[in-house]
């Protein structure tokens, strides 16, 4: 048995720690193990990229990191919260406060304009309307969409949509920005612009986890981990950053 006080204080200080995360899915009558014991520790302010081929379990891992899904076994601490001990409502609070999601294909609500899409997380966080507007506006300016605020998603280019998604992910000032293939659907130039934005955000102190199967994109991060067939390995040698 550990000293209770010690454990508690170390838990409180812990920003991100995964230990032995296993995820199994029931396929027919058999369990398939997708994540085979993943351990990962991240400091606040890091820019990490998870690199792996298709089907290696990247999105599965991201869902667990983002508290959308729970692992079959293992331990996960995020900002001092023991994620596996939380109930549905508490998980939604973590998602609301600590995590900003950027999905592979931007995922905007088609019936709302850019502004409203960015405001949405704040609505669920119970933020006052006037503050909501200013913060959403601020974020849209930050991603360079000051002149596109009231465009509907189908009136925006893929890159612009992705920027709206980034603004939406950032608007709650999350501790952790999670991006699953943020440049997957974009051309190279636009992809670079998005990466520049990520660098800037990281510079400002945002912690970023980016998932990709593209080595060149992964190189943008300060630290790269590989995931192959559900097993994680630290990439050899530090990846230089711009």
């Amino acid at each position: 048995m550990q000293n209770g006080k010690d454990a508690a204080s170390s838990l409180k200080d812990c920003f991100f720690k995964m230990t032995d995360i296993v995820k199994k899915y029931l396929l027919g009558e058999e369990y398939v193990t997708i994540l085979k014991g993943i351990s990962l520790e991240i400091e606040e302010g890091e820019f990490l990229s998870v690199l792996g081929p298709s089907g290696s379990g990247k999105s599965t891992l991201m869902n667990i990191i983002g508290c959308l899904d729970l692992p079959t076994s293992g331990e996960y601490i995020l900002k001092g919260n023991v994620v596996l001990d939380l109930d549905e409502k508490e998980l939604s609070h973590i998602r609301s406060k600590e995590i900003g999601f950027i999905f592979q294909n931007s995922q905007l609500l088609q019936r709302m304009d850019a502004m409203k899409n960015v405001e949405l997380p704040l609505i669920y966080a119970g933020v006052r309307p006037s503050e909501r507007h200013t913060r959403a506006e601020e974020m849209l300016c930050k991603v360079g969409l000051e002149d596109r605020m009231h465009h509907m998603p189908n009136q925006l280019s893929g890159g612009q949509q992705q920027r709206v998604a980034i603004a939406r992910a950032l608007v709650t000032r999350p501790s952790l920005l999670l991006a699953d293939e943020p440049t997957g659907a974009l051309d190279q130039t636009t992809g670079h612009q998005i990466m520049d934005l990520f660098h800037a955000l990281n510079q400002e102190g945002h912690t970023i986890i980016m998932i990709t199967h593209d080595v060149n994109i992964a190189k943008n991060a300060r630290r790269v981990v590989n995931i192959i067939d559900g097993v994680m390995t630290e990439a050899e040698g530090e990846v230089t950053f711009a």
Partner: protein
Amino acid sequence: MSLMNRIMGHVYMFVESCAMAIENIMQNRLRSFLTVLGIMIGVTAVIALITTISAVSSSISSSFTSMGAGTMTLTTTGNDLKDGLDEEDMKRIIDIDHIRGLSPSVSLSCTVARENVSETSISVQGTNDTYFEVHEDLVKSGRKLNRIDTENMSRVCLINGDIVESFFYGVSPIGKTIYLNRIQFTIVGIYESDTSIASLLSGSPKILIPYTTALKMNSASLVTNATIYLDSASASKEVQPKLEELLDEIFSYEDETYKITTMESIEETMKTMMSMMSALLGGIASIALVVGGIGIMNMMLTSVTERTVEIGLKKAIGAEPGQIQMQFLIESFLLSMIGGLAGVVLGLILSAIMCHLMGTDFVISYGAIALGVGFSAAVGIIFGWSPARKASRLSPIDALRRM
């Protein structure tokens, strides 16, 4: 976060949920309209039925109060020694405080004949001068019955319009003779049949004669039916116990020797019948509401399936299950309320038309409106509950995987 902030957060969330719900309803205008139709029809039916019935029943009770208030009817069965009231008994009844008068009513069914015309089974009633005093406008021409007529068992009668038509077409009947069960009577007046509900209930007679004469024709000496007139409508509560005391004494305290019916008690019975009827019809109409509710549930379930991705995304960016549930619940509630309010308006219009056709006054029944609104609110929440719960329980990853 302070408590105040948390409460305000819920308020902002609620307002936003309403806005989203309205937007969703407007997005699928035709579908929403068709869904709402069921509730609308149900509420329309409930409102129209209840309002119409309550208008009819209030018009009935107002005619009761205008015509029948302040009277009591007395029916005696008596005991072995005595089955009715004699002169002395009737005098004692009149002496009770607040009793203005009493008119016996002795019913006969007679064969009426004049010259070569004759009709059987004509309803004839024996009464007294008090009856004419109370119903001042009864006599159209000729004279009333008076005390002397009753004291002398005179063979005089008043006839109504029906008899005039059948027997005296084109002739003035006053002073003419007519035969009731072969007994000769002199016609002294023509009266207008009393159209009050009280007299309709007892079957209105076509010929009025002195009650003493009527008793003799019936080979009876005692009065078994009488109407008692009070000096005010409110006196019946005070009079009834005294009257009962007296009648108990007259009939030697035996059980069930008489029955007193007040207009209030008849009105009470009518009202109970009316409200039972409206409950029954309202119940039948509310089946339509249930069907409407099922329509709403169906639409909400479809909507949840269609919006799986949206729900998943909202959950991924931090929506609580409760917030998702609330949003869908508000949507079904609003749908149902739109139908309900439209139904209330339509129902009121419909019942106004029905009241107009039936010639009764249209009275807006606030109870029925509250019922319609309450019912549709309940339907929206009850039938929206399970789809909303289904939405709130969708797993965000399953939802997002569908993209």
